[in-house]
């Protein structure tokens, strides 16, 4: 059930990146896809344990810490990509006053 929902979230993002023409929404789609991947790792990694991976005296049987550590990196990288893409989109908007990617290509190549 959870995986199916995450898959749908991923598809929403992918659809936006491929088919929506507005650059900002493409970048939204990228963020959503990334959230879906992070959710996938965390949801599956939480299956094997029942407490947070912080060891104290009474804690045992923790969830898998590896996906969590990897996803920390993935989240930060995704935000960096978003920021750079936004900078590029803003510059393009400043010059051509549009966010539509096909229109931008036409204006640039003419």
């Amino acid at each position, binding site marked *: 059930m959870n995986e199916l929902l995450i898959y749908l979230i991923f598809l929403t993002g992918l659809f936006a990146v491929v*088919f929506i023409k507005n650059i900002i929404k493409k970048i939204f789609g990228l963020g959503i896809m990334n959230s879906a991947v992070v959710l996938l790792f965390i949801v599956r990694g939480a299956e094997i344990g029942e407490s947070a991976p912080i060891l104290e005296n009474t804690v045992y049987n923790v969830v898998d810490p590896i996906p969590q550590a990897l996803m920390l990196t993935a989240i930060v990288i995704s935000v*960096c990509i978003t920021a750079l893409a936004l900078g590029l989109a803003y510059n393009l908007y400043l010059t051509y006053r549009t966010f539509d990617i096909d229109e931008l290509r036409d204006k640039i190549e003419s």
Partner: protein
Amino acid sequence: MRIIKKIIGFITFTLASLFIGILMLTRIPWPTELRDIYETNTIQETGAPNIVSAIYLGYRAYDTLGETIVLFIAAMGTLYLLRHAQKSLFIATDSTKETLTYKTRRTSIIKVIVSKLGPAIIIFGMYIMAFGYRSPGGGFQGGSVLASGIVILSFVFIENKSKYMAITQMLKKIEVMVFILLLVSFFLACLQALFF
């Protein structure tokens, strides 16, 4: 022609997403081997009760270095882009100069709330940084909380542009110092790995 292209697009999209779906929906029992290894060894080897912090900043610190560098380059590239955007805008027309002085409405409600909330956020960020090894959090998370605290405060307290420029100069210096600190700590970690 356009319609054909669109149909091809939809078909390929559907097929590719079907494959991704197979990958995401295959259920295999999650492996526990690495978890067990970390559970038994982390405290002896690193001294940090928080396993995620231990992995993020210890076992896989090399990944974190790469991630920090991605962050650094993205910040540098974005600032470069914005600087050039403003330059080209100034050249383009004189009338657009005003576009860069934003007229924002700062009501007193925002001012009061932010001036109370900002320091609290900054202290929370410092707490997360300092106690990341035993409670959730760590350097990066704390740093980003701290940064959002500073950003929120700067929304309210930067009145004119000259002050803003002074702050960017200071931030530039902080950026350099932090990068050097990062590298120095990396070197120290290397040395520690070599000699001790």
